[in-house]
């Protein structure tokens, strides 16, 4: 089952620069929550704090709490490695491991964690994950080719397959479809719908239609002015957000929508 996430008074810094200010948000388990907002408002930044991925950027640090099922991820005794095993992530830019074949890429999460998996289990897992990412048909005959040889869109779908292959409880996605064509996007959206039965999903997207289609809740981040920290402007269930937002900024942003 997916796990709930409660973010309390979260401030995120890059060195001395306060990038995001005082975020409070409750992310429901087994739901899809979308983060939207203008470029630079800190969507990616907030998302990365949900599995402590920001920590690998030197100087980046947070104040505040992120509770995963009530347990603060930032407690002293919490190992970020195990956090990331429960909270998977897909990035804005596709990043398959260049040394690995397509198959190995999908299995990377399992293999790198030194877990032993039989060949047939591995085959099943690879097929399951690649089918989920709508990549299976395109690559099934060349699973042993390097993952890096795929086109951009194919690479991104491979990364999604890799992330879901470790069966995380929570799945964070940072604009996972921005390099995908509509057909692949649809497949991924289907996948997200499928997965939310088991996982909690948080997705950053620029595409408001996508948010409207797949998200149960939507968080709108904004920026008071350039150089100011970003903040969570408005959080609501998706229907409210897109049909009847109770926030002037959000309304303005959404009405600028198109298509």
């Amino acid at each position, binding site marked *: *089952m997916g796990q709930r996430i409660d973010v309390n008074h979260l401030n995120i810094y890059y060195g001395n620069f306060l990038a995001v200010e005082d975020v409070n948000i409750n992310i429901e388990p087994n739901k899809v929550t979308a983060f939207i907002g203008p470029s630079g408002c800190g969507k990616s930044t907030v998302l990365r704090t949900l599995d402590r991925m920001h920590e690998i950027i030197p100087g980046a640090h947070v104040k505040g709490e992120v509770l995963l099922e009530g347990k603060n991820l930032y407690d002293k005794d919490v*190992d970020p*490695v*195990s956090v990331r*095993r*429960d909270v998977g992530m897909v990035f804005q830019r596709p990043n398959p491991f260049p040394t690995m074949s397509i198959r190995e890429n999908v299995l990377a999460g399992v293999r790198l*964690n*030194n*877990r032993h998996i039989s060949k047939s289990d591995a085959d099943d897992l690879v097929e399951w994950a690649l089918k989920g990412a709508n990549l299976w048909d395109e690559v099934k005959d060349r699973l042993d080719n390097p993952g890096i040889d795929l086109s951009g869109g194919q690479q991104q779908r491979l990364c999604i397959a890799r992330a879901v292959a*470790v*069966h995380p*409880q929570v799945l964070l996605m940072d604009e996972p479809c921005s390099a995908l064509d509509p057909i692949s996007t649809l497949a991924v959206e289907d996948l997200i719908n499928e997965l939310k039965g*088991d996982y909690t999903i948080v997705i950053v997207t620029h595409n408001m239609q996508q948010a409207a289609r797949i998200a149960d809740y939507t968080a709108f981040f904004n920026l008071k002015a350039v150089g100011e920290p970003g903040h969570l402007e408005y959080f609501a269930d998706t229907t409210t957000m897109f049909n009847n937002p109770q926030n002037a900024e959000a309304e303005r942003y959404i009405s600028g929508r198109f298509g």
Partner: protein
Amino acid sequence: MSSQDNAARQANTGKTGDIVFKTIAYAAGILILVTLAAVFIFLLFRAWPLIGGDQAANTQTVESFTGGKAHNFWQYVGPLLFGTVLVSALSLIIAFFISIGIALFISHYSPKKLAVVLSSVVDLLAAIPSVIYGLWGGLILVPAIGPFWNWVAKYLGWIPIFEGPAASPARTVATVAVVLAVMILPIITSVSRDIFLQTPRLQEEAAIGLGATKWEMIKLAVLPFGKSGIISASMLGLGRALGETMAVLMILSPGLTYSFKLLQASQNQTIAANIAAQYPEANELGVSTLIGTGLVLFVITFLVNFIARKITEKASA
């Protein structure tokens, strides 16, 4: 699926491995400091008689090394230091531009197949031992380059450093600098080539897409990206030149003067070659004196690298 989930969570997180690995990494880092400290302390320890020992004996040792031309350690090491820096700097000047040119040729100009061949040739050349360069320089280059230095002395002799007559045979600083340049060239080339090849294609495309010529693309994308790599490559090269022993030993006709007469023999000597030349016949105190000069060389390389480091830092800031 949930059974697999549990398995995933129970798998060890590799925390012990993390700690052990981190400790080893730190230890390796600290070992560098310890090693250098050991070298420094040892050199100082062995050179100590120069400072704390019998000064009359020291003077006698230095006089025996120099045939009475120098009377104390500083008079002895001064010209050596001058020679070392002169030879290395000259060789770096000669090698630098050529190396960058070759590195660019390999990384951005030659067809891929040729580049592979050239890269291996350069790697091989980086590996040619200095004793072979010594053989080559002393036996083949010296006679071959003589006419060229005569020509230089004749037509460029009005520039003080090229003052003639050029020594015959040309066992001079100029010839040694050429040999050292050849020796450090592959190192500078191969390190900078590796860096040039790493230039992000996105950057190159950005430049090309703006209508840059190849050279402009190199100026816009490749060189800025490779800057710190080029500097560190040059430092590797300079380091090798400063410490080079055998080639200098086997080619140069040494002298102990502060002279810039590159084409004349018996003008300068490098510290490293001097140690190699004098060590076999040196007595206890002589070895101390030579180690003292080694310590000076050590300090000089320290300073050179320190300054270069500051340049790199400033450039990348």
